[in-house]
């Protein structure tokens, strides 16, 4: 029987009511009395020297309050990068200055050069058109390998070259890995591109800055996944505002997918300008601006080699990847191709030797950073593609080859520095095979062929690492942040309680699922629990939501704080019941004395805490409010097996997804409905990457896919119904909920199975096609078949 509340129940989402009735509170819905509007004049050139920015005519335009240029920000800090990678020679990465407004040079199309603050947005935009720019265009570097050649134009004149870092991992494994390739019975090689994407949450970014002169307090309302991170980065490193004078609020946020993790110039600008203009200043991104100013994702060019022995055991893996950083280092950009990518290259397999090389490159493009999965999709795609290619070269079943090489004993220490705590890869593959009717595939293929279509089946596995931690380890790896999470549980006198979590919900349904956990622990109705997030003035310092960390890390903090509450409440109950504390049991919202019928209700205990008349004041303080900070001892490792069945029209190259099945192991599950929805969304983004989406620049650094007319977002008729299962559950062994995280799995696990399926379809028609780069658009598939 499905539960009707608490952990394991598909509780309907409480946040839905406000979203369905149009009374959500997104950042663009916030309007402050007296606010002015800013319009950013952005570079239409990928690379150029700024000779002059003449604002004199614009300054006299109607409604203009003030115009800012790069010179106004010379005294403030650089937009900081939150992760410093050390290269294979022990040198730290090259780290350029990232100005709020371009100064001296422009380095990518879309970089803000000037900002007009005016009474209305229309007036700001009109005045921006009157700004006269004198910029001398410079040659742009767009292709990463070209950017590394001698004589290539330098994105940053003060750096040695366009190489951010050249990372080797694990450097000590390199010689042994190379030797294993020398000894291999078979080597499969694949060169591929992991296509550049734009995250495209449906809500464009917004920032509203406000300044209270009387108290010298700044407030920034912003579309962020992690308001405390913004407060720390912007306050301490850019504007020099102490945190106690800076409040950052991220209210309802309309999707993030990674791109709202980062600290952006527009946030710093609105905070700065609100004080400079003594007015609230609001910026709302248009979608066109979003395409040239939101951090992009992926954009790796990789060569991967897999060595096998005569029995088809994987003996070594070697990769060389070029990773695009864009023109500046976005907040967590350096970590994505390194610690979020190299550490995942073992995948689900017991390959004993692995060496990963990554060259991160500056180009005259928008900065690239984490997008749903962040490094892990790139790792999974290349690994699962090369394994599939190896199976085809060797003439063995791709599923059997995978099963043969599965890790089966846990904990398992990989050769790429991580230890998987738990998993059961055969179980998810068994489940997948039971879902996809593999035996019936031949008949379905025959039916497709009768209709003039080709049919293919692609399978892959994935391993993910969520809840990146612990903080002291990531600090050694270059993180300039802690990766714990916080929660305060405030119980009110009448028994209801408020959880203030450092996690942030922007579609994940935390207000529902987090309440389920606390309600279950105490044995009260979910509606007695309110979840508060997204406001640094309410919530203890927390790190926010990304990397599928919220339940595993934020939920664990909440559990720890709730445990403290329960422990204290038991002390109060023991006093009220005149019993020993050790005999007090909490069940269904009541404290009872074991073995007796004496009990006291939750609400009586909470009332006693705040009206402490009959209360052990000599032993414990009044009140019932506790805070916990939880720093995990390890990552969590969700895993799964996915299958895609496609039809390909050989006349047009059009690929249609006929069936898609996902068998995931997320450990324990709090709300199955929400988990299923998270997988659906991830699958759509992964399939979007595989078939539709491509962020494309021309050789001059002009963005060709700069609107929804040119960037192919998945529509309803591009996707099938999904077959999703998460009944295989090996609980995480090191967090109190046994949960692993489910937010990114779909996006990580789905691209390889789509490409594997298309290759399978084409090979079934005798086509000598071993790989097609994503997106598998009709023209690319058709061309590959010719």
């Amino acid at each position, binding site marked *: 029987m499905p539960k009707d509340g608490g952990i394991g129940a598909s509780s309907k989402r409480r946040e839905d009511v406000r*979203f*369905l009735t149009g009374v959500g509170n997104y950042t663009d819905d916030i309007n402050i009395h007296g606010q002015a509007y800013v319009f950013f004049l952005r570079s239409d050139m990928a690379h150029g020297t700024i000779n002059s920015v003449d604002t004199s005519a614009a300054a006299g335009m109607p409604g203009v309050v003030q115009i800012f240029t790069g010179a106004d920000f010379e005294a403030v800090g650089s937009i900081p990068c939150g992760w410093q990678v050390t290269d294979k020679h022990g040198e730290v990465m090259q780290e350029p200055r990232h100005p709020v407004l371009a100064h001296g040079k422009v380095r990518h199309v879309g970089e803000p050069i000037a900002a007009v603050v005016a009474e209305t947005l229309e007036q700001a935009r009109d005045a921006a058109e009157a700004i006269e720019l004198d910029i001398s265009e410079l040659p742009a570097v767009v292709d990463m390998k070209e950017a590394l050649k001698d004589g290539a134009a330098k994105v940053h004149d003060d750096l040695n070259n366009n190489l951010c870092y050249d990372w080797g991992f694990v450097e000590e494994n390199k010689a042994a890995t190379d030797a294993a390739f020398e000894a291999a019975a078979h080597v499969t090689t694949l060169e591929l591109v992991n296509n550049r994407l734009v995250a495209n949450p449906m*809500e464009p970014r917004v920032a509203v800055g406000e300044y209270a002169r009387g108290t010298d307090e700044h407030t920034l309302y912003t579309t962020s996944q992690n308001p405390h991170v913004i407060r720390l980065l912007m306050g301490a490193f850019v504007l020099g505002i102490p945190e106690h004078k800076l409040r950052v609020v991220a209210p309802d946020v309309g*999707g993030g997918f990674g791109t709202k993790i980062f600290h952006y110039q527009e946030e710093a600008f609105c905070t700065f300008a609100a004080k400079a203009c003594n007015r609230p200043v609001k910026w709302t991104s248009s979608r066109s601006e979003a395409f040239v100013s939101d951090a992009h994702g992926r954009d790796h060019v990789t060569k991967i080699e897999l060595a096998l022995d005569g029995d088809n055991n994987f003996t070594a893996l070697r990769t060389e990847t070029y990773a695009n950083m864009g023109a500046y280092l976005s907040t967590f950009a350096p970590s994505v191709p390194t610690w979020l990518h190299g550490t995942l290259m073992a995948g689900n397999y017991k390959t004993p030797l692995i060496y990963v090389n990554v060259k991160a490159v500056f180009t005259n493009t928008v900065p690239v950073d984490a997008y749903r999965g962040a490094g892990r999709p790139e790792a999974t795609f290349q690994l699962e593609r090369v394994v599939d290619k190896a199976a085809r070269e060797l003439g063995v079943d791709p599923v059997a080859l995978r099963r043969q090489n599965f890790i089966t004993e846990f904990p398992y220490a990989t050769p790429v520095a991580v230890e998987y705590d738990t998993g059961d890869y055969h179980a998810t593959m068994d489940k997948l095979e039971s879902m996809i009717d593999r035996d019936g595939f031949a008949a379905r293929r025959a039916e497709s062929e009768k209709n003039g279509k080709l049919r293919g089946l692609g399978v892959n596995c994935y391993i993910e690492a969520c809840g990146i931690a612990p903080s002291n380890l990531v600090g050694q790896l270059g993180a300039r942040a802690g990766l714990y999470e916080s929660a305060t549980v405030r119980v009110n006198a009448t028994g209801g309680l408020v959880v203030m979590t450092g996690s942030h919900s922007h579609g994940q*349904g935390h207000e529902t699922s987090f309440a389920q956990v606390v309600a279950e622990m105490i044995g009260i109705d979910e509606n007695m629990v309110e979840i508060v997030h997204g406001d640094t003035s309410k919530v203890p310092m927390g790190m926010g939501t990304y990397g599928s960390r919220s339940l595993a890390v934020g939920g664990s903090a909440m559990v720890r704080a709730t445990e403290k509450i329960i422990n204290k409440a038991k002390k109060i109950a023991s006093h009220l019941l005149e019993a020993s504390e050790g005999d007090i049991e909490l069940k269904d919202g009541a404290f009872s004395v074991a073995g007796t019928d004496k009990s006291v209700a939750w609400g009586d205990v909470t009332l006693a805490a705040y009206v402490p008349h009959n209360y052990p004041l000599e032993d414990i303080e009044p009140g019932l409010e506790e805070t916990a900070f939880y720093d995990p001892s390890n990552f969590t490792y969700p895993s799964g097996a996915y299958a895609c069945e496609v039809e390909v029209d050989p006349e047009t190259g059009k690929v249609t997804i006929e069936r898609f099945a996902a068998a995931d192991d997320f450990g324990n599950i709090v709300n199955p409905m929400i988990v*299923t929805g998270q997988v659906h*969304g991830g699958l759509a983004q992964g399939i979007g990457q595989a078939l539709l989406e491509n962020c494309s620049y021309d050789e001059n650094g002009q963005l060709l896919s700069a609107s*929804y007319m040119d960037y192919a977002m998945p*529509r309803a008729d591009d996707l099938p*119904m999904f077959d999703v299962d998460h009944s295989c559950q090996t609980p995480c062994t090191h967090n109190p909920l046994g949960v692993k995280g489910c937010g990114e799995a779909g996006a990580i696990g789905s691209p390889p199975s789509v490409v594997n399926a298309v290759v399978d379809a084409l090979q079934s028609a005798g086509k000598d096609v071993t790989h097609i780069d994503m997106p598998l658009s009709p023209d690319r598939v058709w061309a590959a078949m010719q």
Partner: protein
Amino acid sequence: MTQVNMTVNGKAASGDVEGRTLLSSFLRDQLKLTGTHVGCDTSQCGACVVHVDGVAVKSCTMLAAEADGADVATIEGQANPDGSLNVIQQAFQDHHGLQCGFCTPGMVMSTAALLKGNPKPSEAEVRAYLEGNICRCTGYHNIVKAIMAASGQDVGAIAAE
């Protein structure tokens, strides 16, 4: 500036607008009906769909002045008179047809228009109709399921998880 007068969710509304003011801006900025969202600037995403004289319209693609005298319905006016969710809204909640909620107002308004003209749409018809509404969160699975459920069809079999 031009004065416009219209009926919005059954109530008279008026304001002074520039010729270039979009209906979406008028609703959001002047009437403070911020449930209508703007997710793009090329009429692709559909977050801004409202009904004008009973027809689904992308309000970012219509000038406020063009709606002078019209009967406009927005997401804020869709719940039942007692404030409870209407059939479509309830189906979206029941079937988890929304996550971040940003595209949701447009989805609900488009669904109402679809079901008015096609009370029992097939899955393929629903997917085709949603061509002009982009969702980045749900993969559409549960949106399609919600719409078919709202139309009174049994979704247990066709949209198994």
